[in-house]
């Protein structure tokens, strides 16, 4: 495999790993809030989180590009902070991917928290566990299947993204050129053999991930 291809694979894995970790960090509180709140904002937040499911990736990429560009609010902020502009950089790609893959992580965790219900947390409270303690010792372990699903889906979805990357990341080797973009380049250059290697690899990867998800992730057990 040519070096450019290897670099693209490595970059893709690095991006997906960083994004998944960030998504678990950001998505868990959102999912917890969505599962427990009675606020009227619940519908609004739920809809916002789910938007990337229905929007074309190019639309998300376009608005992110505008927002992070030199005249956008995020762009001005990052420049003022001395970070510079985010589009066409790895961190910019990470932020865009986090937004793009958010629903794939939030929804399984949200559902899992919902399935845990109120009772185990009440029991934990009667056994002297503070809300913070009960979250870690009861809610998270009971929602584990949701975390596994969310992490796998978030990782896989980030690996498979294309439109957002193209808009926000461009095509810079070892910076923003991920596998999906590399395949596109190969096809444009009529390098079908190399495209096959990468595309076939993606195919296999997707199948293995989903197989693992459906085989090993235990169905949520109902609390006795």
């Amino acid at each position, binding site marked *: 495999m040519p070096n450019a291809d290897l670099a693209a694979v490595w970059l893709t894995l690095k991006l997906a790993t960083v994004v998944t970790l960030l998504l678990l960090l950001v998505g868990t509180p959102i999912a917890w809030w969505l599962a427990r709140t009675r606020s009227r904002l619940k519908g609004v937040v739920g809809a916002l989180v789910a938007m990337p499911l229905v929007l074309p990736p190019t639309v998300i990429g376009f608005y992110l590009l505008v927002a992070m560009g030199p005249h956008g609010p995020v762009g001005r902020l990052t420049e003022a902070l001395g970070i510079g502009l985010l589009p066409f950089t790895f961190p910019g790609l990470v932020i865009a991917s986090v937004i793009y893959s958010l629903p794939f992580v939030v929804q399984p965790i949200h559902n899992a928290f919902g399935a845990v219900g109120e009772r185990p947390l*009440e*029991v*934990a409270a*009667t*056994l*002297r566990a503070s809300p913070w303690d009960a979250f870690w010792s*009861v809610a998270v372990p*009971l929602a584990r299947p949701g975390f596994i699903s969310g992490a796998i889906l978030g990782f896989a979805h980030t690996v498979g993204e294309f439109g957002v990357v193209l808009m926000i990341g461009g095509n810079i080797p070892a910076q923003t050129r991920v596998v999906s973009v590399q395949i596109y380049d190969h096809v444009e250059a009529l390098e079908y053999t190399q495209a096959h290697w990468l595309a076939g690899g993606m195919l296999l990867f997707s199948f293995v991930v989903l197989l693992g998800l459906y085989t090993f992730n235990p169905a949520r057990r*109902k609390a*006795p």
Partner: protein
Amino acid sequence: MTSEIRARFRVDRNDFTVDVDLTLPGSGVTALFGPSGSGKTTCLRAMAGLERAPEGLFALGDTVWQDEARGHFVPTHKRALGMVFQEASLFPHLSVRGNMEFGQKRASTAGKHFALPAVAELLGIGHLLERMPTLLSGGERQRVAIARALLAAPRILLMDEPLAGLDHKRKLEILPYLERLHRELAIPVIYVSHAPDEVARLADHLVLLDRGNAIASGPLNTVLSRIDLPATFADDAGVVIEAAVAEHEADDLTRLVFPGGHIYVSRRDAAIGSSVRCRILARDVSLALIRQTQASILNCVNAIVVDLAATETPGQVLVRLDVAGSPLLARITRRSVNRLAICPGLALHAQIKSVALLG
């Protein structure tokens, strides 16, 4: 720990308002009894702090957990209480031991009266410690839940219909353990139930709830023998008598003594002198002006009529009797009342057709 419990709650429900103001004994078992929808569980949840009743007050002796007049509210996890829910609600990701240790680890060391092996032995679950909750029967789960609550070093134990989800056989399996707790536990227990037999077996103090209001509160027999209460127990009206085992007789009968005399029951393997509870239903008591010697009924005690009240059933009257200080209820027809001229103050003989030994 004989300090009394004060509980005052006002909670608006959709169809009624729970409005109670109770003073309960600081030891023994207090039953909150009433039909479903009477506010029993709401009261219990308010005591636990799982629901914050506006205008609420809850104090255990000097320890005040809620006093809204002063804006004081201690969250559930800072209250030294144990709670057993209707469904055992064990944590499915922890073993039986893990469940039992959950509260034990978090409880303040000051109030720990129980060691895990002792509690496991008390509830007969010592052989289950390494199992996962999903592999337990309903009765076993509920026993683990009780053990788990006790190990959290509670100063009060709240039980929300712990037997309601179980079939008759499982109930009979757990009741002896609850009776053991009743005997061996120094802390007060608040026991929510809508089953008269559980109340008769376990309670010392009884609170009757109806549509959110406490319509009676007092020692078990005082409340049970009140004939003015609307048909709370209906067909199950009756009293509970604490008696002592006096003698096992040759023809397979056991003689029990209580202040009002003695009663015979089928032979029980209980030690002489040990105390037993028995329940006598009003419908099993008949009255006679002359002592019947030519009848099959063995149990007959001298009684004085205290008062009478009509029942929900037409033609039926509830008669409250005094048997040397113990109350007894009889349900007879109005025709018999008239025929025998039964009125308060009359001395007569109460014939007891059957006695249910509890436990």
